[in-house]
């Protein structure tokens, strides 16, 4: 019985998904023991079945991220936070440094769309289309929102550590990670 893997990129840059592709031809060996369900790799938008492993890239910066992450928790036996953003917020979490402001969200949006010296915004508009997911008061790490079972650090994690961890998870054994694979950058 093949294990089912789902993946998603929340507030991330898709770098971790690039690393999933960076396992190169080993993806053929992976597909002998596993299959992908909902993931950008096959462009499947919805869960078609319960999954064994969910790989989460990125933290939560808007409400859609939170809903997607909760959906993954409901549909996956194991959730793995992949990369610095999912684990501790990563670069987006730098926004939280303005949390001591009286109105942090306004300050964040005004800095991004109005005040920053490199901004050209002739209409002086802050995007507010109803189709846009609501931005959260701060960036939340994945473990702050749902229970996370494992994490694979790195920015991004290398194809090698992803490969070794995935195969170990599928086989139900501890991953053998030689020095140099665990990286926080």
């Amino acid at each position: 019985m093949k294990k089912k893997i789902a993946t998603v990129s929340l507030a991330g840059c898709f770098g971790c998904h690039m690393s999933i592709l960076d396992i190169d031809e080993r993806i053929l060996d992976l597909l002998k023991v596993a299959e992908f369900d909902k993931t950008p790799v096959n462009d499947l938008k919805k869960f078609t079945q319960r999954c064994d492993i969910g790989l989460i890239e990125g933290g939560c910066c808007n409400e859609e991220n939170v809903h997607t992450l909760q959906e993954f928790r409901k549909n996956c036996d194991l959730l793995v936070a992949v990369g610095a953003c999912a684990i501790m917020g990563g670069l987006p979490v730098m926004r939280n440094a303005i949390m001591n402001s009286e109105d942090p969200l306004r300050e964040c949006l005004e800095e991004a769309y109005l005040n920053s010296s490199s901004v050209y915004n002739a209409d002086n508009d802050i995007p507010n289309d109803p189709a846009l997911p609501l931005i959260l008061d701060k960036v939340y790490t994945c473990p702050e929102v749902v229970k996370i079972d494992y994490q694979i650090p790195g920015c991004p994690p290398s194809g090698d550590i992803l490969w070794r961890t995935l195969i170990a998870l599928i086989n139900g054994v501890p991953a053998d990670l030689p020095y140099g694979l665990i990286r926080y950058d």
Partner: protein
Amino acid sequence: MSKTVKFKIDGVKIKGRAGQTIMDAADDAGIYIPRLCDVEGLSPQGSCRVCTVKVNGRPAAACTQPLTEGMDVENDILEILNYRRDIIRMLLHEGNHLCPICEASGRCELQAMGYRLGILQPAKYPYLQPVRPIDASHPDILLDKNRCIRCGRCIRASKQIDGKNVFGYIGRGIHKGLGVNGRDLAGTNVHVSDKAVAPGTCPVGCIIRKGLGFHEPIGRRKFDKVPIGSDIENPESGRGK
């Protein structure tokens, strides 16, 4: 010649000299005891507790504990390893340690300790995400206290080697932090040639030399290929390169 003291680390018989600490004798014997606040050339202060070992069954800081005849030291055991992992995790969670954007990444001792101790699992601690301003006032040196781990190495280097008092602790408990002897760093008598701000004094990316950013390419940085402590375990292999 001082008196020889015989003792054991993890069952291995070792000879040290009277007056030495466990850490110094272990270093001489090629046994690495992980440490953050202790560094060669400065007096030990025993504050980070990463070097905690069991001495005759009781925990003690190896960097400050003097040798005694026949002591039985346990270093490389699971119980101690897990203590050390917890300390490193707490340090990583207390500050803002954004390795992907930090100039010290690759030569950072906190990060390297995480690698050496194999820290992978999600920790039970929340990220505190403190808000600490950056002091970029000095023309040559930048101070980013988001990354400070209160090891006091810059404080001791300034006092003991530079003969100045540029850095010091302020506050207590969780509020304890690094202070400078002036309005800001530019308001102190620190000089870029001081040991307190020299490379290798700050174990993390709190004290940064301006104009050098990311000068070592990934793959050639200090801890890219070998774990922290390799220079002690294999002295002939060259200092950690």
